[in-house]
Every structure is written in C-alpha cells, then in structure tokens.
C-alpha cells in the first residue's frame, strides 16, 4: 500500500507527463493555423508520421497508462479524503482556498468526459474507422477536424473543456511542484508564475483552434 505522500507522487508524475504531452500535442496542432491548403497536407503528413513511429507508439502507451493511472489514483485519493474530511452544518472554510483547488476531482472528471468525446471524434475514426485519403494518400484527419468544428456545440464543448483544463492545470502544476518537494520560497514563486503561464497558454491555445476553424473555414 502506497503512503499518502506516494499516492500524491503518482498523481504528480502522471500529471506532469500529461501536462508535458499537452505541450507536444499543442505544438503539433499549431499547424492548423497555417494557410488552409498548406495546413491540410502538412497536418495529415504529420499525423501519418506519428502513427507510423515506434517511439511515438511507446509513448502513446505510456500516455494511455498515465491517463488511466491519474484517474484511478485520483479516485482512490478522493474517496479517502471524503472519508477523512469533515462535514459541518455551517461551512465557510472555502474562504481560505481557491474553488478550483478544492474541486480538482470535478474538473478532472470533466476533462475525462471530454477525452472520451475527443478520442471518439478523431482518434477512434483515424485508427479504426475509414477516413478519406488526401491527395498524397495520407488519412485525411484535417477534413475530420474541419467537419467536427463546423458544429457550434462541438466548439462550445471543446472551449468549455479547455477552461476546465486551464484551472485543472493551474492547480495541478502548482501542486505537483509541491509534491516534488520544491520548498524554496523564491523558486516556488517563479514556478507558480511559470505554471500559470503554461496552463493559460496551452489551454487557451487549444481553445482557439476550434474557434478559429469555426469562424474562418467554410
């Protein structure tokens, strides 16, 4: 049985890996902002490259494992916390902390539901479905993306999920650095700023993609 601190360490390591993956995913997806013609071919080529690479394959399994571990560990921790914590008739404890710090489980669940939708939208179709091919013979993921983001409710779901992700990341990165044991007040301050910047840039950047596509590409 892992100690409470080790369980948090598992959250921290899987979480940081996922946060790092987001950066790579984000950088790759920036290609969607290229001029449409170029974006179309380049994005599909990039996807094809990723799908065929053995290294990427290994990383993708680590990724799936991380998501599952992060969610399960989170569940275990939350259940224990619910048992350990108190219920008060009159409760204003919230004044002392941020709402998103207290509700990481809920934010995480939203993100998990989003992931299911997101996987179903692209990953499933790309892997197991029969997507069209582009002029170079690559699976045309780009068209799939454009199609999905023509629907306003998908755009809305994606944007809202990115807001949840943002808050989840702001607390998550901060908390992970704590769990790693960074205790120097000066560096803690710097990392806090860097963590917030990272969270906002990544999640807002992701959120811009469906919005950009919805409004610019017909």
């Amino acid at each position, binding site marked *: 049985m892992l100690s409470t601190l080790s369980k948090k360490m598992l959250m921290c390591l899987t979480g940081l890996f996922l946060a790092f993956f987001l950066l790579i995913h984000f950088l790759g997806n920036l290609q969607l902002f290229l001029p449409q013609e170029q974006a179309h071919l380049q994005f599909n080529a990039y996807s094809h490259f990723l799908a065929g690479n053995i290294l990427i394959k290994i990383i993708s399994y680590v990724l799936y494992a991380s998501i599952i571990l992060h969610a399960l560990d989170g569940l275990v*921790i939350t259940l224990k*916390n619910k048992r*350990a914590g108190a219920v008060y008739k009159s409760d*204003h*404890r919230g*004044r*002392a902390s941020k709402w998103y*710090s207290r509700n990481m489980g809920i934010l995480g669940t939203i993100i998990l539901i989003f992931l299911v939708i997101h996987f179903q939208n692209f990953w499933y179709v790309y892997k197991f479905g029969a997507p069209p091919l582009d002029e170079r013979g690559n699976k045309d993921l780009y068209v799939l993306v454009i199609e999905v983001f023509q629907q306003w409710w998908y755009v809305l779901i994606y944007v809202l999920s990115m807001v949840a992700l943002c808050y989840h990341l702001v607390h998550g990165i901060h908390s992970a650095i704590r*769990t790693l044991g960074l*205790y120097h007040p000066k560096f803690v301050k710097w990392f806090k700023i860097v963590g917030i910047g990272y969270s906002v840039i990544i999640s807002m950047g992701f959120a811009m993609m469906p919005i950009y596509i919805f409004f610019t590409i017909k």
Partner: protein
Amino acid sequence: MDLHLKIWRQKDRNAAGKLETYTLTDLNPHMSFLEMLDTLNEQLITHGEEPVEFDHDCREGICGQCGMMINGIAHGPLKHTTTCQLHLRSFKDKDTITIEPFRSAAFQVKKDLKVDRSAFDRIISSGGFVSINTGQAPDATVIPISHELAESAFDSAACIGCGACVATCKNGSAALFTAAKITHMALLPQGKEERNQRVLSMVKQMDKESFGHCSNTEACEVECPQGISVLNIARMNFEYNKALFFNKK
C-alpha cells in the same frame, strides 16, 4: 450586544449530536469569545442544565487547547488567531453564530465541542524529536547556526498543535502539522542525523491515524494561528522523497 448561538451538543463519543439554539443578551463587546461561552454556561448551570463542554486552557493563544469552528471557519473570522483570542467585537449585535467542534475522521468528538486530538501526540511519538538523552548534550555553541536558519526553524517550531489545519482541510489532512515538525528538525544540524528515518516514521504514523491527503489547497496556512507556511509541506515531501530514494533498506 445580543447574540444568538447555535451550538453543537453531543452527549458522548457514540451519541448523535445536534445544534441547540441559545440567546445571550447584554454582552460586552470587549468580552472574549470564550468568556461569552462562560457566561452562557453560568446561565445553563443555574438553570439546572448541563454546561457546554469546550476545550480551553491558557486563553492566550499558545497552549493550543481551544479550537472550534465558528460560523464554519476554524477559530473564527480573524486570521492567524486562536478561538481564545477572538473577541465579541469581531461580531455584530444580534448576529447568529454557529459553533461546532473541530472535526475530521481522526478527531472524534468526546462531548459537545471537545475533540480527541491524541493522534498528534502519536505522530510526534513516532519520530518528532532529536534522539538525545539527558546529559549527552555538547556545549551549545559548538555548532553555530545562522540567525536566518534559527529563525526559519522557529517559524516551523511555532506550531501549537491546535488542529485547526486538520479541521479546516477538506480532506482532514494533518500534513501541515506533521510537516512543521519534520521541517523544524530537518533545518537544524541537531536534527539532521536521523532525518530520513524521522520522515518515514512520522508519515507512516500520520497515515495510520486516518488523516486524508494533502491537496495543496493551502487553506491550512490561512487558518493556522501561527501562520505556519505551507512550504513546510513541500519540505516534508522533499525529505520524504529523498528518504525513500536513499533508504538502504
């Protein structure tokens, strides 16, 4: 001033409790919060009722014995203050105040507002000390300790063990309490020799006592009467990770 009180009454450990309502009139705003409860108790006793049992002793904010949730906030509305240091001037005339015991799975209610915090003693007992017997000490100035280091060790050592951190934590976590002692000891050269063993045993004992995980919401620091920094928790994590990594066993 007049106050309406809703106070948690519970006969003993196993009984179900509930909030009872009381009204006090003509209170002096300079009265301390606990003196207000004294006044209530005097009235209850003379009316043949059982007084409200609550923990308190030094009434100057250092013994750590007092502590209650006042309107859902550990030690009441003022920050970095114990319940005994709270005065009625922090409330308004005709206010309704809800008073509940500090709670968590590890702090069982003994009666009314009194809770069992012996888990803290067991955590200290598991390793929160320097293993030195009386008489073994070398001269006090053999090891110089910088002013800053001594002050910073003091900041951690200032914990009064009241349990507000646990009561205010949504997870009922004792991380701040445990971390403060681990940090105090890890900072000083005297405590460095057994730091690995200490952090491992103390964390183990903390987990045994049904406290929850630390989610780093940092509420504990806000409500801590001594303002113990949450960075102590980071330090505990550091010490723990290091001890796990380098542990030879």
